[in-house]
């Protein structure tokens, strides 16, 4: 994985850039000492590290605008950073960049139950958005696994999902408005307390643009009344294909579960050894959760179990209490940790049409043999979002590269099957050079044209999302102009 060479002219002006930033921010918010910038050298894709030239921690929209204006004038690349939990390297710095961290911007600006919305500064963590409204019976629906730590800014940048998005949608379906600062420091308001854009859907375009179009400082989010209750059923099958057919039948039956989670045998075995959740040893395990009143849950679960019985499950375990629900979820929630006990792992994020699940799992099994690396599959089955976890040994020379090559093959397979490279983690640097697999040059050109409009100098998070060879001509002029 390559990153562009740092611009020496930018590096040579570090002192001047720092001095100018200190004019608009408190000194404590401008981090330039090499020992301290190291704290920002990577995100959750820890295989790649590079300390930034400077990191800044503004506390409101005006400060962000002031920082961006200076960086724009000085021709310094800016890498926005939420909480640094990206698994795709979305917040990986370059040596010549300013990291713009939104961590100090974590306030609630307004809660409005009448209109079912909350307005927050985007450094606020995902879980604390729900925290601000849950006592009044509301919640914020998107729930990425990292929700305890991840920031709304990063959720918007990556259009994050979560286990419950089968029913509630992902970030873009729950985002109503943003305050965004453009690279030149201009502040733009898009959307708000109303639904749907009057003109072009810029909000939909900004969400998922990986911090390349602007820095979102405030967001209006849809909040929902909490359901009366929720309970899962666990089912085991001795065949992946049968489990896939069962998912399809549940969906067709008109029950709308909030989550349908899938685990394959390697993952079940690892999880059992680690968490001892009492899962059945079988080829495929499904956890299906529904919501409503007690009677509504009973009714939906009975329908789901009736469908499951037609597929000869080896195990069918309906939760009747909060304790039983917790036990069913325990294994799934510790799946990543369990795999991590065995070895280092790389977590992939492709999406496939649900119908091609058996084929894709079979091929992944075959490739696992070919590459000699173990892989376990955790899967949001309702929407086809796969998370294959490839095990490797980071201390063994060549193992990371082998793992990356295996990962790339799996993602190509997802595209071949009619799916895509990433369902909820984003492209970042991790899948950047695979974009050619999914998109033709004209497709990438259309996307890059959008960045040209929002950030003509390509200074915002420039070395991400697009293959370096595709974006080279656009990034180069900005540097050459110095």
């Amino acid at each position, binding site marked *: 994985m390559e990153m562009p060479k740092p611009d020496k002219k930018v590096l040579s002006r570090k002192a001047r850039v720092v001095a100018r930033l200190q004019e608009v921010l408190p000194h404590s918010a401008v981090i330039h000492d090499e020992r301290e910038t190291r704290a920002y050298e990577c995100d959750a894709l820890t295989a790649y590290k590079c300390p930034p030239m400077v990191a800044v921690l503004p506390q409101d929209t005006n400060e962000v605008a002031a920082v961006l204006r200076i960086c724009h004038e000085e021709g310094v690349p800016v890498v926005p950073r939420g909480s640094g939990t990206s698994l795709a390297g979305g917040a990986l710095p370059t040596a010549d960049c300013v990291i713009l961290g939104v961590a100090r911007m974590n306030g609630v600006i307004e809660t409005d139950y009448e209109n079912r919305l909350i307005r927050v500064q985007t450094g606020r963590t995902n879980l604390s958005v729900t925290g601000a409204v849950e006592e009044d019976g509301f919640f914020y629906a998107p729930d990425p696994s990292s929700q305890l730590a991840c920031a709304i800014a990063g959720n918007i940048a990556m259009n994050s999902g979560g286990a419950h*998005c089968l029913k509630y949608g992902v970030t873009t*379906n729950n985002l109503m408005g943003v305050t965004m600062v453009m690279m030149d420091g*201009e502040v733009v308001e898009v959307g708000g307390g109303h639904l749907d854009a*009057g003109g072009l859907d810029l909000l939909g375009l900004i969400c998922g643009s990986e911090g390349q179009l602007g820095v979102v400082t405030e967001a209006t989010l849809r909040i929902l009344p909490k359901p009366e209750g929720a309970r899962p059923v666990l089912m085991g099958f001795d065949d992946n294909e049968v489990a896939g057919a069962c998912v399809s039948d549940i969906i067709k039956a008109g029950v709308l579960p909030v989550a349908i989670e899938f685990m394959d045998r390697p993952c079940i075995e690892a999880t059992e050894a680690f968490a001892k959740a009492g899962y059945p040893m079988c080829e495929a395990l499904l956890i299906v959760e529904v919501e409503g009143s007690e009677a509504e849950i009973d009714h*939906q679960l009975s329908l789901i179990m009736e469908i499951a019985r037609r597929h000869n499950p080896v195990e069918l375990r309906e939760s009747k209490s909060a304790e039983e629900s917790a036990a069913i979820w325990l294994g799934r929630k510790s799946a990543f940790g369990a795999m991590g006990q065995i070895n280092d792992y790389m977590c992939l994020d492709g999406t496939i049409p649900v119908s091609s699940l058996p084929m894709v799992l079979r091929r992944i099994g075959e490739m696992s043999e070919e590459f000699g690396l173990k892989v376990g599959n955790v899967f949001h089955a309702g929407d086809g979002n796969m998370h294959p976890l490839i095990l490797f040994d980071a201390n063994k020379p060549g193992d990371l590269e082998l793992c990356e090559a295996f990962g790339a093959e799996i993602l190509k397979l997802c595209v071949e099957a009619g799916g895509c490279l990433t369902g909820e983690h984003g492209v970042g640097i991790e899948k950047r050079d695979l974009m050619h697999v999914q998109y033709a040059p004209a497709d990438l050109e259309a996307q890059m044209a959008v960045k040209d409009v929002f950030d003509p100098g390509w200074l915002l998070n420039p070395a991400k999302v697009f293959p370096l060879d595709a974006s080279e001509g656009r990034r180069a002029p900005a540097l050459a102009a110095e």
Partner: protein
Amino acid sequence: MDIKSEEDLVEAVRGTDGPLSVKGGGTRGFAPSGDPLSVAGLSGITLYEPGALTMVAQAGTPVAEIEVALAKENQRLAFEPMDHLSLLGTKGTPTIGGIFAANVSGPRRIAVGAARDFLLGVRFVDGAGAVVKNGGRVMKNVTGYDLVKLMAGSFGTLGVLSEVSFKVLPCPETEASLVVHGLDDAQAIAALARAMGSPFEVTGAAYDPAAQHCVIRIEGFESSVSYRMQRLKELLKNAGGDIAEWDAAASAKFWAAQRDVAAFAEDAGDVWRVSCKPSDAPMLAAKAGAEAHCYDWAGGLIWLRTATGTDVRARLGLFDGHATFMRGAEDMRKALGVFQPESAGVARLTAGLRARFDPRGIFNSGLMGAAQ
């Protein structure tokens, strides 16, 4: 030119100096000047996987054909797109491409999302005649920028859709509506807000001041619908009006009419559509001083019927939302603008995007704020 394939579309775009008036069935009442370019000939469902809740269809496929195919599997377009034929007095066959190009969503939008939330993938021909694809046919996809959302609601100003893939949902077992009679506007919007703030999964929330009907729809399994009906009745027993219940047939009849704004179809006058914050709705409706008005989306959507030539935006002033001039004399729609003028920053981005996607300015010039 008769467009029968995506190649034909490419040829038509490359071979013209414009301007082109891009349309599906031409039923939505947006008719910019220019040579007509219709994708009605690009028709047919190319893929339907009921178990994956996804369908792919060519842009000119009639909506009716899609609804028939979905009904066979007991599924539907959950965002409940309205039919504009009767309200606008247009002729023609509504197409699936037209629905997404205009981001047409009905009453259920408040519960399940808009047309744009259901659109999974697009193929389109840009102003230079290049074929561009974005998104795909899976429900979770964050691979690159979301041009799918950008194309939804772009009214053919950035490119001509050739194919769309979208999410569908199962039809519920049944529906029913709770009706509160005798509330004024402010009481009705407050009652709808209470219902929307409950966990009882309301899928329609409308108020018709003419009939004084404040209507709340719930859908799902029979037992669940009757349970939630009881809970909502308890919740709204002090709302101030008389509570009644409509069964599935009566409920369906009301929401079909509500979806298509049937109340305004027969009467003359201009029609405006205002998207706003629900709690602002009664105040905005009062300011508009329309001849008739009704609310959907729990107040988030106001339909106004006004005297010919009324500048509704001037009456509303600045507010959180936007007003679209849906029906009126063409010269008045040109003079006042069909769409709400944008802030300087947003307008600059919009103009920039149009200049990049349609450098020659051949698509639907004059629509969406761009210069004629």
